[in-house]
């Protein structure tokens, strides 16, 4: 557990409504450690940008308090918060050169000319754009503009940098390259970054922790591997990675596990994570790669019949859609190796999985 003074940013019961009718952010709580790379991941309209804007000071919180370095900042105007920001469209000032853009935050802080020039140079070198100081933003490519925006947000040594989908406008290759560059900058400068994206692979590769956002609430805040391996609710299980969902009613629960009766009558043993109680509905979540075809008898505690509906050849594995427990969208991944069964469409097979890999979560319908 981090000690209290390692917490740099803290949202405490923050709520936000733009129109007085709908809560865009409901009861947002978040502790962000110094030096952390925290990503907010969520579908469009889930309130990610709104949270950033509240932290940056451009939107007032309707309720609750935000702390920066232990100080409440609800009444601190944006320019006194010392928070760097990278906007989705970069927001480079078109009437200034790249160098002037970078020196702007230093000028308004009243820094001397020689010191300014040195810092601007260092920041541009950091993003490998040392020769571009005299260009105008209009003369940069998307990737270059993006780097300038990152350099500008860091040049005045802010404690926290907010990035709102900074790579959204770039193509896939460039985006991956920039992901690594931002990651390296984060590691080298030990700056605290709050990052927003709705691209989950971006979130998983870059972050120390990811806050999955939906419906104005943080659904789960955890390191990437934990988020994938141990989702605590059905939304997160579904949102992160491939996921199979089976719906059913809980028959019994004992300690670690529970027995669930699927809607077609078959019984499944699952790990008990987030269930309401015996007799209630539940969602079972199971990663496709944890399902085995034709398992050895006794190898798994769950064994069911399935029918292969569709096979998609993907090189290293074959993605197979099956009918299981009355659901016809059950996906399994069969590794493409001699050891594994060769299926064809319409085959009836046995499948099995461990109750450890099958998580019983809150009901969705």
């Amino acid at each position, binding site marked *: 557990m981090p000690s209290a003074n390692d917490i740099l940013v803290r949202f405490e019961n923050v709520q936000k409504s733009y129109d007085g009718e709908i809560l865009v952010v409901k009861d947002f709580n978040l502790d962000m450690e110094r030096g952390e790379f925290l990503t907010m991941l969520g579908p469009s309209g889930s309130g990610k940008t709104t949270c950033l804007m509240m932290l*940056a*000071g*451009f939107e007032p919180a309707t309720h609750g308090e935000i702390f920066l370095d232990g100080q409440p900042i609800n009444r601190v*105007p*944006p*320019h*006194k*918060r*010392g*928070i*760097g*920001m990278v*906007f989705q*469209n970069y*927001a480079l*000032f*078109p*009437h200034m050169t790249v160098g002037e853009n970078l020196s*702007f*935050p230093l000028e*308004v*802080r009243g820094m001397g000319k020689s010191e300014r020039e040195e810092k601007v140079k260092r920041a541009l070198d950091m993003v490998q754009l040392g020769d571009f100081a005299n260009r105008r933003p209009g*003369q940069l490519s998307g990737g270059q503009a993006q780097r300038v925006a990152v350099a*500008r*947000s860091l040049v*005045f040594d802010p404690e926290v940098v*907010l990035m709102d989908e900074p790579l959204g406008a770039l193509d896939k290759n460039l985006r991956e390259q920039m992901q690594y560059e931002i990651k390296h900058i984060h590691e080298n400068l030990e700056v605290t970054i709050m990052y927003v994206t709705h691209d989950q692979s971006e979130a998983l590769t870059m972050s120390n922790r990811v806050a999955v956002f939906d419906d104005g609430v943080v659904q789960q805040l955890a390191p990437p591997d934990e988020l994938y391996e141990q989702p605590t609710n059905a939304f997160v299980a579904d949102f992160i990675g491939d996921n199979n969902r089976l719906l059913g009613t809980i028959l019994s629960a004992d300690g670690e596990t529970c027995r669930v009766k699927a809607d077609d009558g078959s019984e499944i043993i699952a790990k008990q994570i987030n269930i309401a109680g015996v007799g209630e509905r539940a969602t079972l979540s199971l990663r496709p790669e944890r399902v085995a075809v034709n398992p050895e008898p006794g190898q798994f505690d769950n064994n069911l019949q399935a029918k292969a509906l569709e096979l998609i050849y993907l090189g290293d594995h074959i993605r197979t859609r099956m009918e299981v427990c009355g659901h016809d969208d059950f996906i399994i991944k069969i590794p493409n190796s001699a050891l594994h069964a060769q299926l064809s469409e319409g085959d009836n097979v046995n499948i099995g999985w461990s109750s450890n890999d099958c998580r019983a979560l809150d009901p969705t319908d």
Partner: protein
Amino acid sequence: MAKKMSQSNTSSEPLKTADGVSLKVSLNRALRRRKITALLLVTPLFLFILLTFLGPIFDMLLRSVDNKIIVQVLPKTVSQLAVWDASTGELPDEAVFKAFVEDAKIAAENKTISRVGKRLNYEKSGMSSLFRKTGRKLKKFDPDKLEISYTDLVLGYDKKWAKHETWWLIQRESGKYTSSYYYAAVDAQIGVDGVQRKPDDQRIYMKLLKRTMWLSSLITLLTIVLGYPIAYLLATLKTRTSNLLMILVLLPFWTSLLVRTSAWIALLQREGVVNDFLVTLGFIGDDGRLAMIHNQVGTVVAMTHILLPFMILPLFSVMKTISPTYVRAARSMGATSFTAFRRVYFPNTVAGIGAGGILVFILAIGYYITPALVGGTSGTLLSNFIAYHISTSLNWGLAAALGTILLMVVLVLYILYDKIVGIDNMKLG
């Protein structure tokens, strides 16, 4: 500036299309066809502009220097006068007078002599009546019954003919083209001993030009000051509210210019709404009613109001393109809201101010109806005098010269603007 991409064209063989025609030839053929289509499309508008805009401007330029009438009506006199040396201070010799009598008699019978008189009257008053009187007498004159010299004959008609200046004037204005309208337009006169400024009390046009420039600048400044915040509101408010505001801005466009101007008369006149209001509130006494119309105040107020949309619209369209994230970015980097405005928002609106400013200024220096209605004597502009010379005094040459000067002012401004701001940066929408 972006570095020019160097084009590499290394192949030595000329490229050919599939059927063997050189690529250049077939490309040119395709381009020519497109050019002809484009030409055909712009022809109607081009002809229209040529006939109704460029033509009249050219005609105006010509009129401001045109001086054919004297050579046409008095051809012999003009050629005889050409050898007369005016600097001696003596009257021309008998040959000139003879030529003049012959020319003027024909002109009197053709009724063209009064036109010469009118033309010379612009240079010196009294000329019109002199020529009319002389023409009347020459009509009755029979050259066969002449007993005295031509000189004595003409001198006997009017003692103005005995004045050296009269002949000097005819000689001066005997060219096909004249600059005298321009001298008049800048309040100068050409005397026997060179160009001089007119006496103080007769200098009107320069004073008017100065007033026109000053009032137009003031009006432009006022439209910027009043229009900038409105345009900012329009560009930043929610679409529904800003549409409503935009209708209010455009409303004046849908009302007749005359109605708007007369509305200002109703508001600002001595017994008008504003004065009544101030008297009722006790700010001024009934005898101290303010004179706000038929003077410069009236011109400035009414024209600022009328020209305001021409400032707001270009400003609005420029501000609309400025993303609000610029200001936010500046704020996040530590700029106060004022600094963010001054260093980031405002510089991006300069193009709009320039476009609106040049538009309003050009419209203002040529504005005519409003100052005529609400300007009184102190608030009339140069354009009102141009109109006066066109429709009342019928001195079209002077009107054309004044118009040309206004046109030059606009061109100079345009060039200055291009030098300082760059015309490419002008954004109208």
